C-alpha cells in the first residue's frame, strides 16, 4: 500500500497522524492485507454472504419510547465536552 492510498484512507477515517506514523501504517497494512489475501484460495462461488452473527428471523416489537429516567437526555449531554443552552456546541462547519 502506498502513501497516497494511506492518506486517502486516513482522510475517509477522519484521523490525523504524523508522516513517520503514516509510513509505518502503510507497511503494517501491506503486511496484514497480504495475510488476508489467503481468503482468495477459498472457493466461494456457490455461497451467499453471511450478514450478521445470528440465525434469528426478524423480530418485531411495539414502537414505544422507553425512557430510563425523566432527564435521560440531560445525562447523555453531561458527557459532552461543550454544551450551551441544552445544545451540543461545535466549531464552525466551514
Amino acid at each position, binding site marked *: 500500500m502506498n502513501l497516497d492510498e494511506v492518506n486517502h484512507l486516513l482522510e475517509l477515517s477522519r*484521523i490525523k497522524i504524523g508522516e513517520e506514523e503514516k509510513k509505518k501504517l502503510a507497511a503494517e497494512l501491506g503486511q496484514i492485507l497480504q495475510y488476508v489475501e489467503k481468503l482468495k484460495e477459498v472457493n466461494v462461488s456457490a*455461497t451467499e454472504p453471511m450478514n450478521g452473527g*445470528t440465525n434469528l428471523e426478524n423480530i418485531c416489537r411495539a414502537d414505544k419510547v422507553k425512557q430510563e429516567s425523566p432527564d435521560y437526555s440531560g445525562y447523555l449531554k453531561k458527557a459532552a465536552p461543550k454544551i450551551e443552552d441544552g445544545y451540543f456546541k461545535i466549531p464552525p*462547519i466551514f
Partner: protein
Amino acid sequence: MIKEIHRKLAQREISVTELVQRYLSTIKDKEEQIKAFITITEQQALEAARKLDSEIQEGKELGILEGIPFAVKDNILTKGIKTTACSKILQNYIGVYDATVIRKLKEAGAIILGKTNMDEFAMGSSTENSAFFPTKNPWDERRVPGGSSGGSAAAVAAQMVPFALGSDTGGSIRQPAAFCGIVGFKPSYGAVSRYGLIALASSLDVIGPLTLSVEDAEIVFRVISGKDDLDSTSYDLRACSLPKEKITVGIPQECFSQGLDSEIKENMEKTIEKLKAAEITIKTISLPLLPYSLACYYIILPAEASANLARYDGIRYSPLDTELEGNDLLSLYYDTRGLGFGSEVRRRIVLGTFVLSRGYYEAFYKRAQKVRKLITEEYKRIFSEVDFIISPTTPTLPFFLGEKKDDPLAMYLSDIFTVSANIAGVPAISIPSGFSKEHLPIGLQITAPYGKDFLLLEFAKKIEKIVAYE
C-alpha cells in the same frame, strides 16, 4: 468457589462487609504489581455491602450471587462509574446507564469492586494496548495476562475478585483465561445481551464470565443470559442435559500444524489420553477452513469496528485532556481521533475503511462474509459427527511484555484457535489443563454447537475434573 462463599454468607460465618473488605485488601496488596484495575469502587462497594448486611439482619434470604463481589471489564457500561474502554478518547467518560448484564447482576445482589484494564476498545491479545498501563500476568509478572480482557483475567487469577465479566470478539475472554490459568466462557452469539457493551464488532461481540471454576461460570451465566428487549439479537437459550450414551469429542488435526508450542502439544496429548481413559470417544476431525478463520476475522472485525468507532467525534463523549488546535468541525474530527485513538485502533479503523471502500468491498468484505458462511456450515457438519470439539486455547504460552507489541500480525496469531467460534457464533470455553515446565498455565478449549451453552457447561464440568492437575 461462589457456592462456598454463598454458604459462608448464608450461615453468617462472615458478613458481606467483611467479605468485601477482604477482597479490597487483597486488591490493595497486589494491585501495585498486577495493575488489573482502572477504577476501584471501594466506597460504593462498602455502601452496598452495609445495606445488604442490614437486610440480612432483618432476615433476608440470600440468593446465590447476593453479596458476591465482582469486577467488570472497562468496556461494559456502569452507571455513575467511569467507563473508558481504556482509550484516551473516553478517558473521562462516566457511564450514563447500566449495561443489561450489570443491571441483572445488581438485581441478583452482586457487588462491583471495580473496572478492569483491557486493550483499547478490546483490540489486542495482551492488554498492552491499554492507553493507561499494561497488566501483568499473576503467574509471572514479566509476562502478559493475555487480552483483551487481561485485567479481568488477572484479577480473578490473583483472587482479587471471585469472578469478573469480560467480552469476547475473537478470543478476548478465552485467551486471557488460558494465560492466567482460570476459566473463561464465551457464550453463543446472542445468548447474553450486548446492551451497554461498547461495540467493537457487533456481529462477533459476546459478554461472558471469567471465573475460578466451570460451576462459577455457569452460576454467573444463568444470571446474565437471556433475551433482552434492548438487544434485538439476544434470545433465550433452552436448557439441555448431557446425553447418557457415549460422548464423542472431535480433535481438529489442523490445530497441530500451526506453530503449536511443543509443551502445549504434549499437554494436549496427555489430555486426550485422560479423556480416553474416562471412556470418552476421541475422533480426529478435519476443519479445512479453520486456517482461514483468522483472515476472515481480520476483514470482518475492522469493517465493523470502523463503523462502530465513527461515533467518537469529539462532540458527544468526554473531552481529551489536550487543547485542540483546529477551529473548524473537520479539524475537530481529525484532531480528536488522531490524538484520542491508539495505534492499534487507528490501524483497524483504516483497515476497515479500506475493505469497505469502493473497488475493494467485493474482493475483501463480501468474500470474507462468504467464507464466514462456509465456516459456519463446516461447524454444523462437524457437529453432526461429534458432540464437542476440543483444542488448545492458544498456540503459545503467555509471552513476555513487549515481545509482540510491535508486530501486529504476530499478535493477531495469538487468537488463531479462538476466532473461529466467534465467526460461527458457537459457544466455547477455556479451562485450565495444567502447567508448562516453567509453571505457566495452559488452557484447553471446548466448543459446542450453537445454542448448546448449558450442555457445554455440563460437559466442561466433567472435563474439568478429568484434566485436573496436581
